């Protein structure tokens, strides 16, 4: 967890909930939604994007430093919650980006209203049920299995020990709570919403879909289905890469994303 002077942690109140928020940079607004593993805080790749954009990285309800409001049970609830967050932050014509479960939330938000979106970036996103393959089991598996699922080639991950080291007792409590919340949101239907592809046909927002070709959790087929469902979407596949391109291939990932963002009208 790297915190820089641009990556200050703060809180913002949404309804009655204090939301933990990492933010930094300047320029057009970019909201990034983390995945089921939780909010890793301000990361080097956020810093890279913060050169051109004002990057907001909130902890989702029930994850890390944000309490779960008692009405939040589903990804739809989370999407509505984030739309309230967007309003609280005063974002308009912003870039919405999400990874894994956060990508699913982002897609649901875009389906709710895309008129305030300048661009949409989905990274190895959950949300669509594949036809020919399966989303891997992430809850009813051991820690060792979970760790194996994450990266295609751990040896190419910069600062790998950051993701594999033994957690402090405080971090363990957070990690346990994060997994509890992810279970609550994603258990059934499992990491998808059958209606979501049908929602997305109206989302005319320019969209980048980024996928690690060897994603062992959410298969590339889901990226292809997102591309088919979204009218203005480009799918960019990162080779030799697993479920977390931002961590496993950070330079290539930032390059792909910044190129797309630079081309937005």
């Amino acid at each position: 967890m790297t915190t820089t002077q641009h990556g200050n942690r703060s809180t913002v109140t949404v309804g009655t909930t204090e939301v933990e928020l990492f933010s930094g940079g300047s320029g057009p607004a970019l909201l990034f939604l983390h995945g089921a593993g939780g909010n890793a805080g301000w990361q080097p790749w956020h810093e890279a994007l913060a050169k051109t954009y004002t990057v907001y990285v909130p902890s989702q309800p029930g994850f890390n430093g944000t309490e779960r409001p008692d009405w939040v049970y589903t990804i739809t609830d989370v999407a509505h919650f984030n739309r309230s967050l967007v309003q609280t932050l005063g974002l308009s014509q912003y870039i919405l980006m999400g990874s894994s479960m956060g990508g699913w939330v982002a897609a649901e938000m875009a389906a709710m209203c895309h008129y305030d979106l300048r661009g949409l970036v989905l990274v190895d996103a959950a949300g669509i049920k594949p036809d020919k393959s399966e989303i891997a089991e992430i809850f009813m598996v051991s820690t060792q299995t979970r760790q194996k699922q994450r990266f295609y080639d751990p040896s190419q991950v910069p600062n790998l020990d950051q993701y594999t080291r033994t957690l402090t007792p405080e971090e363990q409590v957070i990690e346990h709570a994060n997994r509890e919340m992810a279970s609550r949101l994603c258990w059934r239907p499992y990491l998808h919403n059958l209606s979501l592809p049908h929602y997305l046909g109206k989302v005319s927002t320019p969209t980048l879909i980024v996928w690690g070709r060897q994603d062992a959790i959410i298969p590339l087929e889901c990226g292809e289905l997102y591309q088919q469902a979204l009218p203005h979407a480009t799918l960019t596949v990162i080779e030799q890469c697993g479920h977390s391109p931002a961590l496993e291939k950070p330079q290539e990932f930032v390059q792909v994303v910044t190129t797309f963002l630079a081309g937005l009208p």
Partner: protein
Amino acid sequence: MVDVYWFSEQPYGYVTEQDLEPYESGRMHFPNTNFDPEKAHVLYQNYHDQYAWADEVGFDGIMSNEHHSSYWCMKPSVNVDAAVIAKVTKKTKIAMLGNVIALNDPVKMAEEIAMLDCISGGRIVSGFVRGTAVETLHAGISPTENRERFEEAHDLILKCWTTPGPFRWEGRHFPHRMINPWVVPMQKPHPPIWFPGTGSPESVIWAAKHGYPYMNLGSLLDLTKQLKAIYHETAHEVGYEPGPQHFGYLMRCLVADTDEKAQEIGRTFLWTENHRNRGPIEFNDPPGYQSREAMRIKMSRPLIGTGTMGRRMTYQELQDAHNIIVGSPETVLRKLRYVREDLNPGYILIYGNEGNMRHEDVMRSIELFGTKVIPALKAD
């Protein structure tokens, strides 16, 4: 006075350590290709004969339960088993410990239990359980939902039994707009409700708050005494004085004609013990299955949280701890008296067979309980 209940997990006793070893877990991963329905047919027959015999020789009750994806319990439906008990017995209470109400439609649960109560002539004790986490996983339900589904199902079942229909129920998990079950229980206002647990203080507190008898399923005596103390504390907070009728204790127990023979047969109580609940923590205690309050209670009481599960004790150590009681009628009686003195339970639940114990040996054990042990306990 103590009531003595017979209980059999109805194991599929053909499974061996060698069968189980290759698999990541003893339940969810152990393939059901190891199950032979022809063999199960014979086993069920034996288990039902044991029920009938227990009734005949003088047990006060028969306890049953259910588990899913488990080779050591061939009962995926306690209600089906209770229906059998109701028909093969005449006098015994039928204690279902119990229905996994969080995972089923509570209205159907209420109907089935009411039906069983009518069929059995009011002999049903209706236990409600949260189940092991594997039950919830096997049902495809998020472990984070178990507790609130349990609470809602409990309230709805009670309403089905006590409120004339039709009525409406707009709960989060089990919404129904028209409920009017034709069959209602014979016992009024409803069958007794028991609540079992293995080691969780949260379960004890829940039972005590509702005034429901708490059945401890085989924790070690020291832990059980602590849990009982929590029951008492909670009952006092709520405003009643609990007695033995609020507390039961389950032990693995077998009687034979001699101590030597019982020692030999009783060894089977350790059948595949290390595999029964073997599996990652994600199976046995997934995040969200226990409430944060339950975890807080556990933290605040450092001695609590270790039952027998996952804890390797030898056959002799388990006997020394009165967790397994085997012997001649005299030996078993002496040990049961010790447990009664120590815990003062109103119900002694006999976990009476295991693995591939011979049917004849189990039948003889039941007989010796009925002719020697139970009458002596009652005469104390």
